[in-house]
């Protein structure tokens, strides 16, 4: 990790790794979609509508995963002052909000035919909406403060405050009586889903993870380039000022 703290070294390693990760993302997405559409059976109650779950569940996991990553990066910024922590945090936010958005939209599209409504103010749905709004607030704060180090510290504090919502999202179905079903994969006593559906679901989750990691690495690389551009622009302005003087 220490070695990767150098942005130049990170650019070199990530540049070599990214094409392989993108290849794995394409491969697992192809396999996952094939399994979802041609191997996984229809649910005895939901029918073919269960196919929405192969998008909804991985998107929900990734929405939580990226916020958790941002919270760890926030600690990296505030406590360890790791030079790439805020770069990681800034790159993760747009991906996290996108996956949380996918989770909310696909959940609503599943809810209408299954529950008879697109939305209920149930603890799980509401806490995921709060997660989405937290991401939106964090993105707004990044854009509101121009100086990257000041923005990183302010965003880190907001991110850590918002991290309290992560266990609420996870355990909302246990703590409150919700319309949303309880956990059926990561639970004590093992998954309650039949293997014929569980394996395609896990492959899709792996595909989403590869997509998310690729986008995150690409986002970090772009952010490092953006900061180089900013530094060179300032240096150029200083040089021109000195010439005029």
């Amino acid at each position, binding site marked *: 990790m220490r070695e990767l703290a150098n942005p130049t070294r990170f650019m070199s390693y990530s540049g070599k790794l990214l094409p392989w990760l993108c290849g794995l993302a394409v491969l697992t997405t192809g396999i996952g979609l094939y399994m979802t559409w041609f191997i996984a059976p229809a649910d005895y109650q939901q029918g073919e509508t269960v196919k929405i779950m192969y998008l909804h569940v991985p998107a929900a996991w990734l929405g939580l995963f990226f916020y958790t990553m941002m919270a760890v990066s926030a600690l990296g910024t505030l406590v360890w002052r790791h030079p790439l922590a805020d770069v990681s945090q800034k790159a993760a936010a747009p991906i996290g909000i996108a996956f949380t958005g*996918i989770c909310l939209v696909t959940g609503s599209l599943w809810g209408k035919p299954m529950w008879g409504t697109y939305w209920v103010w149930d603890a799980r749905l509401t806490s995921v909406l709060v997660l989405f709004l937290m991401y939106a607030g964090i993105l707004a704060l990044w854009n509101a403060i121009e100086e990257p180090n000041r923005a990183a510290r302010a965003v880190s504090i907001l991110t850590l405050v918002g991290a309290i919502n992560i266990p609420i999202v996870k355990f909302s179905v246990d703590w409150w009586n919700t319309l949303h079903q309880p956990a059926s994969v990561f639970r004590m006593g093992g998954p309650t889903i039949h293997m014929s559906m569980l394996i395609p679901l896990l492959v899709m989750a792996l595909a989403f993870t590869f997509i998310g990691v690729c986008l995150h690495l690409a986002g970090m690389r772009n952010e490092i*380039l*953006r900061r180089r551009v900013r530094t*060179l622009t300032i*240096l150029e302005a*200083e040089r021109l000022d000195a010439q005029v003087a």
Partner: protein
Amino acid sequence: MATHTFFIAAAYAVTTVIVAGLVARAVLDHRTQKRALAELEARGAGRRSRHG
């Protein structure tokens, strides 16, 4: 199934559009930053002033 086709198709369409948007954003941002960096380096922006 037939009555639910719209919901399934809409879920896959929305997901595809959002993921494609993220990929396009990353690629376009990379091109923009690379171009800006190349222009700055071509102008010698990294060089220190002799006066400074």
